[in-house]
């Protein structure tokens, strides 16, 4: 039993990480139907910028805030210089652009920062919490709490503000949104800023657990994406549930089946979800016009 509980706790810890990363996909996807393959690099930038500002003597909380600002600037630049000029391109072209951006950012991070692994001290310290013979780190709860806060903020933003409504309108029908006076270009830009900010916060919160380096983005983005798929891409609640589920699946697969193949779980999940329930658990129905 303690073994089962320990697997569950480590699953929830990893799951909270995936949930945070998965959340970052939702704003951009909701506003523009683009799946941003550079989302993992936003996570990496958040963590790495904080680490290096910290090494330069900036107090960590300030470094974290600056890291969010830097990442948002990168997100806005990505939209302005790569996504915006490619308006009307096919889904494949947009995927290639964000993949190009992801490779570019990784290469740039390798030059600007370095190639080593770095860690951040936990944002909330203290001993591991013991429950029924198993332990969980307080930092895991911070990550989980961060995910919940972001879901609530996103919900409030979409449901309670005019700009949020404009974002929903842009996603539903860009032309119609423009006709009622919404500056859709700015709305999509805003969605990139929000996704970048969520990614940066994720990177800052998870670095004490996962460590960070210039190339952590790819795998994190793929896992986060699998989580988002599982929960139903575009749904914030789905991202969190999907993330936790994926984390648990991985932990139990590692514990009871094979730890070597735990990374394979995420991709099996992607394939199974795509083929069996393409909308995910919480996704909206999609209608295709021909």
């Amino acid at each position, binding site marked *: 039993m303690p073994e089962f509980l320990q697997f569950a706790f480590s699953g929830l810890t990893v799951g909270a990480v995936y949930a945070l990363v998965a959340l970052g996909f939702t704003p951009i996807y909701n506003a523009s139907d683009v799946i941003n393959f550079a989302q993992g690099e936003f996570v990496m930038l958040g963590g790495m910028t904080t680490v290096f500002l910290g090494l330069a003597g900036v107090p960590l909380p300030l470094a974290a805030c600056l890291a969010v600002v830097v990442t948002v600037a990168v997100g806005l630049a990505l939209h302005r210089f790569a996504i915006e000029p490619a308006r009307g391109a*096919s*889904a*494949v072209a947009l995927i*290639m652009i964000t993949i190009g951006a992801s*490779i570019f950012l*990784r290469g740039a991070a390798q*030059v600007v920062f370095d190639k080593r692994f770095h860690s951040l001290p936990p944002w909330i310290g203290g001993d591991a919490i013991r429950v029924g013979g198993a332990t969980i780190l307080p930092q895991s709860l911070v990550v989980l709490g961060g995910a919940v806060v972001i879901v609530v903020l996103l919900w409030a933003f979409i449901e309670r503000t005019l700009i949020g409504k404009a974002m929903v309108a842009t996603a539903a029908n860009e032309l119609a949104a423009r006709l009622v006076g919404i500056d859709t270009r700015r709305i999509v830009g805003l969605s990139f800023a929000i996704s970048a900010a969520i990614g940066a916060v994720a990177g800052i919160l998870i670095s004490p657990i996962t460590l960070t380096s210039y190339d952590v983005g790819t795998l994190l983005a793929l896992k986060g994406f699998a989580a988002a798929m599982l929960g139903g891409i575009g749904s914030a609640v789905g991202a969190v549930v999907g993330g936790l589920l994926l984390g648990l699946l991985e932990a139990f697969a590692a514990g009871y089946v094979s730890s070597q193949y735990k990374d394979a779980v995420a991709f099996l999940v992607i*394939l199974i979800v*795509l083929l069996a329930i*393409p909308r995910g658990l919480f996704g909206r129905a999609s209608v295709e016009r021909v």
Partner: protein
Amino acid sequence: MRALLSHRLVPVVAMAAIVVLLPLLFSSAYYYRVAALVFVFALASIGLNLLMGFAGQVSLGHAGFMGIGAYAVAIGPTHLGVASWLSFVIGAALSALVAFVVGRPILRLKGHYLAVATLGFGLLLAIVFTNEARFTGGPDGMAVPRLVLFGSSVWGAQSWYWIIAASFLVGAVLALNLIESPTGRALRAIHDSEVAARVLGVDVAKAKLAVFVVSAIYASVAGSYLALLNGHVTPDVSGFLRSIELVAMVVLGGMGSIAGSLVGAALLVVLPQTLTFLHDYEHIALGLIVMAVMVFLRAGIVPTLARALDLRRA
């Protein structure tokens, strides 16, 4: 004359001329090696181009098939006692079989979803190659025994250059013939509009699956050659970045242009070799190239040039 110039085999004749004349410029084995690498990747790009440029389906996991081909020629002779050339053929057959089994469900997906599913498939293969260390040597990879043909083993970059370049030409001719066949027309119809193609009686699912299998065979053959040329294989051969490179070669040279695949492969293989002093900036450059091509040169290099020449002539 004009009819002769617009014949569909003109690009092949031109490429054959390149293959024959190129060695005149080579001053060392290193050049043969780099050129052989170009043709390896051009071969894989042609296959992927059939899928992307003609059928309009993306695959971000094609390096997985390269991996099957590469490990086939490594594992077959080393562990199973199967002759190298036979392993080569078995690898291609295995890739075709895997593509057939996986393609049936996956190709029902579209756009983003297809991209992600193929990506997941490629990564799964890479994970298997990394983990089955008993057979594959794990992350460090394994040595690839030399190919033995007619009793003597193939050796040296120069021999490989001729073998691989000849295979590339054969692959290019087969691809051009496929494009002009009824299947090729069906594929282009699917690219333009799947619904319209279906209305006209095209068996869309079957045509897509057929081209997926063909493109997997191209990738597998290229993977086998890559492993034999290097004499060594690691799981990187089927990595995510490799798949992206393949897609970049196709879009850079031009989707739907067989000659474009050669141009794309040449650029992405030769540039990093010549700019070794910029090694740290390799990823920055690759990322920028991919983004810039997708934004500014959406048709790719060869189709854009061809159109510019046509305009001048008209």
